C-alpha cells in the first residue's frame, strides 16, 4: 500500500509519500514522479510516513532528482523523514559527501541528507 498526498501552491508542490515504497509499487511511484516533475518546478518530497522501503525507491528518487536538474527544476527532500527511510539509505551506502557528476547544482539529495545527519551527530 502506498499513500500519496500532494499540496500544490503556485509552482510549489509538496508530495507526501508514505506506506510501502517497495518494488511492487515502483511503477506507480514512477508515474507519480513523472507527473509531479511535469507540473511543478519546486518539488518537495516528504517521507515521514514511510513504513517500508527498498532499493527500487532509492533509485527512483535519485533518477527523479537527476531529471529535475536536467529540467532546471528543484527537487528536495523535506527535513522530516521516517527512521526506516534513514536506516535503509544509510545501510545501502547511499549517503555521500559530494553529489555525482549529474549533480550540477550541488543539491544531491544524499549529500544533503548526509550533511543533516552529520550535523545531528555533532
Amino acid at each position, binding site marked *: 500500500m502506498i499513500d500519496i498526498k500532494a499540496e500544490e501552491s503556485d509552482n510549489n508542490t509538496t508530495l507526501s509519500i508514505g506506506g510501502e515504497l517497495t*518494488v511492487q509499487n*515502483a*511503477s506507480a*511511484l*514512477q508515474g507519480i*514522479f*513523472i507527473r509531479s*516533475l511535469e507540473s511543478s518546478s519546486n518539488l518537495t518530497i516528504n517521507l515521514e510516513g514511510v513504513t517500508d522501503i*527498498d*532499493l*527500487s525507491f*532509492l*533509485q*527512483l528518487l*535519485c*533518477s*527523479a532528482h*537527476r*531529471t529535475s536538474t*536536467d529540467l532546471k527544476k528543484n527537487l528536495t527532500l523535506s527535513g522530516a523523514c521516517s527512521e526506516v527511510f534513514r536506516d*535503509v539509505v544509510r*545501510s*545501502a*551506502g*547511499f549517503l*555521500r*559527501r*559530494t*553529489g*555525482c*557528476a*549529474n*549533480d550540477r547544482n550541488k543539491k544531491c539529495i*544524499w549529500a544533503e541528507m548526509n550533511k543533516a545527519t552529520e550535523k545531528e551527530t555533532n
Partner: protein
Amino acid sequence: MYLGRNEQSHREGDKLMSNPEQHKAVYREEAHELLAELETSLLELEEKPDDAELIGRIFRAMHTIKGSGAMFGFDDIAAFTHEVETVFDMVRNGLLPVTKELIDLTLSSRDYIKTLLDEPDSADKQKAGEIINSLKKLTPKTLMPDEAKNSPAFPSPKGNESGTSVTYRIRFRPPIDIFTRGINPILLINELYNLGECSITAQTDAIPRIVDIDPESCYTYWDIVLTTDLGVNAIKDVFIFIEDDSEINITVLNDSTTSETEARHKKIGEILLERGDLTEKDIKNALRKQKPVGEFLINAGMVDAGKIESALAEQKHVKEIKQREQPADTASSIRVASDKLDSLVNLVGEMVTVQARLSQLSAFRNDPALLSVAEEVERLTGELRDQTMSIRMLPIGTTFSKFKRLVRDLSKELGKQIDMTTEGAETELDKTVIEKLNDPMVHLIRNCIDHGIETPGIRSAVGKPAQGMVQLSARHSGAYVLIEIMDDGAGLDADAIRAKAVEKGMIPPDSELTEKEIYSLILAPGFSTAKKVTNVSGRGVGMDVVKRTIDNLRGSIGITSQKGTGTTITLKLPLTLAIIEGLLVQIGKEYFVLPLSAVEECVELTREDIANAHGRHLANVRGQIVPYIRLREQFMIIGRQPDIEQIVIVGVEGHRVGFVVDNVVGEHQTVIKTLGRVYKDIEGISGATILGDGTVALILDIQKLVQTAEQEEVVK
C-alpha cells in the same frame, strides 16, 4: 602463508620455504593446536549450544585445518574436514540445531582427523565414511548444498582464515533483474556488516532519468571495503545465490602481514623534503593553492564523484583499522621450537655453574675490582635464569581441558553422570612437568570416575545428587604447585584396603596403621581393590606407576578421603626441573645437595647427644624427638667424623627427619644434571650438579632415603 596465527610464525615459515617436510611439520604442529581448540570448543558447545561465537570458533578451526591441509598435501584431511565443515556451516547459519549427537560425531571426526595427521596409514577409511554418513543423516536433504556448487576443498589464494584481519575491496554489481528474483540487494550487502568492519558506498551513476528508468531493474552497484578475519570464502558465501549472474570482484587491500613500509608509499612532497630540495614552508604554500586530487579529478570530468566518494571511504576505513590494530601488535607472541628453549636453558645452566666458579675465585683472590664484577655477573645471571625459566612455564589449563573430553567419554561409557570443573587453570608449570604429568593425571581421573563416583542410582539412594563431580584445581605453594583431583564419590574404604594389603602380605595382620598410611598402600605396586577389572581401570598397575612418575618429577602424592563423601588426591610438584635452590653440605671430601625447599632447619649434633640417645638415631631438638639418618653410613664414606656434626632437618610427608652431615656449606644454585643411564636405578640420588670449582655434588632424593631407612627399621 600458514594458518595465519601470527606474523612471527609466518616469518619463521619463510625460512623453511625450501623444505616441504618442514612445512608439513609446521602444519602438523598448528593442526594439533587447532584440534585441541576444536575439542575444547565442542565440549563447551555441549554446555552452551546457543553460543554463536563458539560455533564460529569451531567452524574456523575446521576451515583452517581443511584449507592449510590442502595446501601442504594433506588431501585426505582436507577432503574429510570439508565434509564436516559443510555440516557446521549449516549450524553456523542456524539451519541445523546443536545436538548431543552432532557433538559426538564431530568429536569422532576430530579424532579421525588426528589419526590422519599422526598415523595416516592406520586411518580407517570405513570409519570416516560412517562418520560422514551419520553427519549427513543429521542434515535435512534440502539443505545439502549442490555438490558442484560446494566451496572447493582448498583455501582461498590468501588462505588467511584464522585470527588475522584482512581488508578486502569488493565491487558488487548485482544482475539487473535482481528484484524479480525476489532478492533484496540491500539485505544482501548488509550481511557483510556481520563479517566485520565495513564501509559501503553505493554507486548510482548508471541510474537513468525518470522517464527512461525501468523501476523494477537494479542500476545500483556497490564498492565495499571490508575488514574481516573470516576469509574470502565467508564473503563469497554472502553472494552465493547470485554469484553466477553478478559481477563480484574481491581484492585484498592489505592484510596484517603487509609491513608498514609496504603499505604506505611516500608522497612526492615528502621525498623532496627529505632530499632538502624544498622546505616545509614551500610545500605548505604550494599546497594551499592546490585542490585535493579528488576535487581536481571531478572538475576535470575524469572520474565520477561516486568513485572518489568510495575511494575516500576506503582511505578512511583502512586508516581506522590500522589505528585499531596498533595496540594489538604490542601484545604479540612468538612461536619457538621447544628444543631451542631447552638448549637455552642448558646454556643458562652452564652459565650459572661458571658464575658460581667466578664468585668462588673472586672471593679467594680478594680483589675488590674482581669482586664487584663477580657480583654484577651473579645478579645478571640470576635474572637471566629466572627469565629463562619463566619462558618455559606454561599454564596447566591446556592439560585440564584435555581431561574434559576424557571425563565426558568415560562417564558415558560407564553410564555415570559426571560434571568436571577446573580451578586455577592459569597456574604455570614447567613445560616438561606438564608433559610428564599427563599420564598420571589420566590415571587418577579414571580412578575417580571408575571407582570413586557411583552410578546415578546408588547416588540417589544415598541422598547425593545424581550427577557426580570431579574437580581439578591447581595452585602455587612456595616452590611447588599443588594439583588436586577431588571427587564426591564413595571415598576410600580403609578397611577394605587394609584387608587387601594383609591378604597380599604387604603388611602384617596385626600392624597398626594410621588412616593416611593405609591410603598410601594403594600406591604400592600390584595393589588393586576393585572387585572387577574394567576396561577403564583396576588392573592394579596404575597407582604405583603414578607414584613413580610423580617421584621422578621430585613431587609427592597426598591422599585424603572420607568414606561416603569423596576422595582428594593432591600432587605436589616442583615448579621447575632444571634449576633448584639447594643446600650444599659436606661429608668427608664429598659434597651433596639437598633441595632447600624441603629444609626446615640445621642443628648441631654433638657426641654427647649421640651418647644420650643410647645408640638410636634420634635427636632431641627443643624437646621434640627427631629421627635422623647418618649420610656418612648411608653412603659408606670412610674417614673420621668431626666432633660436632650437623643435622639438616627436612620435612618429608609431614614428618621431620634429620640428615647428619659433617658440615653445612650453604645455599647453592643447583643446576640439575641427570646422571645418565648407567646410574638411573640408584636409589637416594636424584641427580648431580657441578660446583664452582668443577667438582660434582650429588643431589639427594630425600623421600627415597627416608623410605629406605623406614623399611630397614621395619626389617630390624
